[in-house]
């Protein structure tokens, strides 16, 4: 072996190449690259032909008030860098309701030229984003500010998040109201859900007609084909309509129990729980030193389970299961499996399709929809005013921002606080309202008045507005709202077993009780300050 074989020479060059790649990787891998404002849209383009209009005034709503000019007067020396985790990419779609939040941030950045504002979208499905927030909150690796929707107890932690209580009692530099708290609409009811143990750890906005509202889309053409001439106003009419649809060979109701949209199923668990278990809710509201406000928090729910009030032996819980079973005959084909690609409603294959207002732009912008459609709200199971799940603008505001305590430790509290005070000032709220396709309105206003002069919009958004939320908010005594988002998956699977016939009612109830107990146990472990062993 006098001279190295050709393979060795090849090896040398490969070695050089590999070393180069290693160096490149070491440089590139060390620093994650946050997307700078404005963020490049990384979601796939929606099927709608939204060649995005540049100016926000091009949306359906009339051009509202211009963005409040952020003065640097309040904290003139602000400089530094601020990174914000946002719920998905809020800069991607100018037609999307969250774009207004992006514009407000832009405006603030423009008026604080010494501060570099960077957005880091949190991507994924709902479970992914919630999981991201919870995990990184605990491992202290979140950005400086976090903007999210629908906070659940898993994202609320007084040990790890900044407490705004003191600042709320003082004036907001960007507003003329006596205190910052006065800036929040509807008597700051949005702050209720994020206040625990007397500490408010998030600031949020809520408006009637807010993004978290839910409603049900209907395809009028399909309904008429089946002989249904008007929208059902009672549960009996709903069953009748679905029966007629099924007889006509049309899929009646979209109810996914698997895949990314299974949260729809959890809405109806929440709604039906309210209608079927009012005594349990009344017994548990206000317990364990919580406020008696018609809303069940995680602490109250845990108390409820631990003291045995919320128990599967209650006929209300059994009725929950059997109601779904009866209803399941009208669910779309293959509701137990992950949904196929594409949207059944836009394809004109299904009559009723639940939707959250956040997703309305997808339907509105789809050029393939040629049929007559609108939204309405499902009637109550037992008559009376149906319960509204989802934000409904009364107490569970959808858009929230919080400051992880790590930001305070980094010395950036004043930057973050200033930004939040700007975004939630009264003028900013007006501006935000002016940009929405459903303008902010007083609860109880009929749709025709909200969309004066635009009957098409009134029909399309009717389900979010009527019946009014002020009279009928759900109590949220359901696993989805009282506990971590991900437990919903476990809960829905139990229902899947029952609806699919794999488990009997008794087996399902046993499994459900186990789930409740496990959730309560975990919650107690997470909150030693509750002193749960003193309960009952």
């Amino acid at each position: 072996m006098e001279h190295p074989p050709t393979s060795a020479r090849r090896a040398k060059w490969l070695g050089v190449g590999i070393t180069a790649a290693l160096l490149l990787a070491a440089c590139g891998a060390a620093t994650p690259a946050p997307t700078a404002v404005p963020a490049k849209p990384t979601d796939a383009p929606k099927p709608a032909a939204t060649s995005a209009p540049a100016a926000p005034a091009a949306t359906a709503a009339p051009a509202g008030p211009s963005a409040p000019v952020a003065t640097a007067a309040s904290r003139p020396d602000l400089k530094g860098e601020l990174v914000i985790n946002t719920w998905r990419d809020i800069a991607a779609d100018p037609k999307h309701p969250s774009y207004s939040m992006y514009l407000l941030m832009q405006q603030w950045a423009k008026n604080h030229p010494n501060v570099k504002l960077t957005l880091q979208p949190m991507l994924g499905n709902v479970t992914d984003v919630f999981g991201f927030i919870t995990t990184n909150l605990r491992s202290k690796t979140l950005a400086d500010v976090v903007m999210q929707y629908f906070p659940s107890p898993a994202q609320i932690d007084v040990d790890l998040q900044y407490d705004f209580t003191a600042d709320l009692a003082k004036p907001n530099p960007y507003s003329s109201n006596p205190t910052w708290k006065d800036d929040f609409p509807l008597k700051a009811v949005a702050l209720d859900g994020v206040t625990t143990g007397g500490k408010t750890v998030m600031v949020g906005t809520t408006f009637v007609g807010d993004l978290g509202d839910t409603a049900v889309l209907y395809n009028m053409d399909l309904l008429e084909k089946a002989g249904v001439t008007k929208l059902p106003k009672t549960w009996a009419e709903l069953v009748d309509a679905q029966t007629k649809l099924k007889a006509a060979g049309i899929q009646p109701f979209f109810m996914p129990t698997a895949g990314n949209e299974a949260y729809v199923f959890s809405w109806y668990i929440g709604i039906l729980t309210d209608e079927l278990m009012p005594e349990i809710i009344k017994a548990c509201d206000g317990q364990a030193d919580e406020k008696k406000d018609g809303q069940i928090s995680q602490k109250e729910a845990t108390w409820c389970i631990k003291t045995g009030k919320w128990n599967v032996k209650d006929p209300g819980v059994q009725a929950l299961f059997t109601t779904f079973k009866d209803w399941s005959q009208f669910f779309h084909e293959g509701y137990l499996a992950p949904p196929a690609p594409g949207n059944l409603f836009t394809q004109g294959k299904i009559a009723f399709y639940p939707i959250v207002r956040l997703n309305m732009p997808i339907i509105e912008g789809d050029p393939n929809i040629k049929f007559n459609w609108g939204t309405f709200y499902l009637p109550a199971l037992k008559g009376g005013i149906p319960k509204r799940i989802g934000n409904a603008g009364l107490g569970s505001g959808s858009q929230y921002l919080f400051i992880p305590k790590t930001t305070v430790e980094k010395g950036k509290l004043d930057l973050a606080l200033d930004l939040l005070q700007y975004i939630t000032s009264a003028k900013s709220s007006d501006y935000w309202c002016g940009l929405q396709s459903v303008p902010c309105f007083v609860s109880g206003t009929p749709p025709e008045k909200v969309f004066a002069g635009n009957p098409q919009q009134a029909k399309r958004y009717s389900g979010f507005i009527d019946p009014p939320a002020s009279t009928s908010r759900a109590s949220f005594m359901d696993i989805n709202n009282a506990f971590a988002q991900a437990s919903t998956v476990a809960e829905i699977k139990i229902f899947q077993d029952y609806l699919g016939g794999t488990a009997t009612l008794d087996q399902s109830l046993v499994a459900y009780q186990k789930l409740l107990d496990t959730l309560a146990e975990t919650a107690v472990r997470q909150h030693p300050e509750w002193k749960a062993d003193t309960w009952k």
Partner: protein
Amino acid sequence: MTAANSKLAGPPGPWARLARRLWRSRVLYLLILPTALSLIVFYYGPLLSGLWHSFRYWDLKQDIFIGLENYKRMFEETAALAAWRNMAVILLSQLVIVSSMPLLGALLVFRLTGGRMQYLWRIIFVLPIVVPGTVVVFVWRWFYGIDGGFNLLLRAIGLGSWTRIWLGEISTALPAIIAVGFPWVAGLNFLIYLAALQSIPGEIIDASKVDGAGPIRRFFSIELPLVRPQIVLLIILTFIFYLRSFDAPLIMTNGGPGTAGTLVPGLQMYRAIRDDLDLGYGSAIGTVLFVVMIALTFINFAVRARIARNEQNRGRQS
């Protein structure tokens, strides 16, 4: 020799000898240090940490001792037991598959006359290795959809009544996942079998042909025994792989339909981490998987040792 005496002249004690040898080899220890560090940080450390935390409630913020509660939960939850059962079904099916179909394919190719033909078919059946497993699962997921490949095919040939929601029904979901990869011929297993067959010395085969052995008899008396080590190897590798793999249940059905239609322990653990941040429970599942693996390995070794010993005895007796 005591330590006190070691200062005096005389042969060094055993500890001192050892110390001297260690010192002489210090460069060698340095050279294997990177590997050692990697393995300690990413294997031994986690192994011990997993075992330790299986007795605790751990969610990144808190770390409390709770005794055997995680293990109790594992055996009380109906979903947990179903998960182990599903994994056993998958394992056994895959063991049967791996020891039959690729071998059949390799055998057929091996029996072809003409090296060019063999080479061509080898490429054809090895090429599918290229496609990542996730992509395969992804495509099969489409095939199993309501309007996916299978149902369309059934409708096209008039068997519309046989269409199912393959991934949505409890009776078909698990078989559907096992069936992914049909006909299970192509891939790494095929390659290994073929290589083993091709390394059988030509004289043995020619001799058997002269003896008049037909193709089937040739298989059982010559090829099969000589390929047996590969079969065993692939069984072990397949076993190790499927004991922990859960990509298909995760991507195709997320463990459904229902609580445990296609749930496997690995997926339970994954969900415990990603969805619930219930890390103690996840550690408990991992520990049980580990114990099962070790137990089965021991059994495997013991059985093989016993077989080898029997063969030796028989050899000695004859």
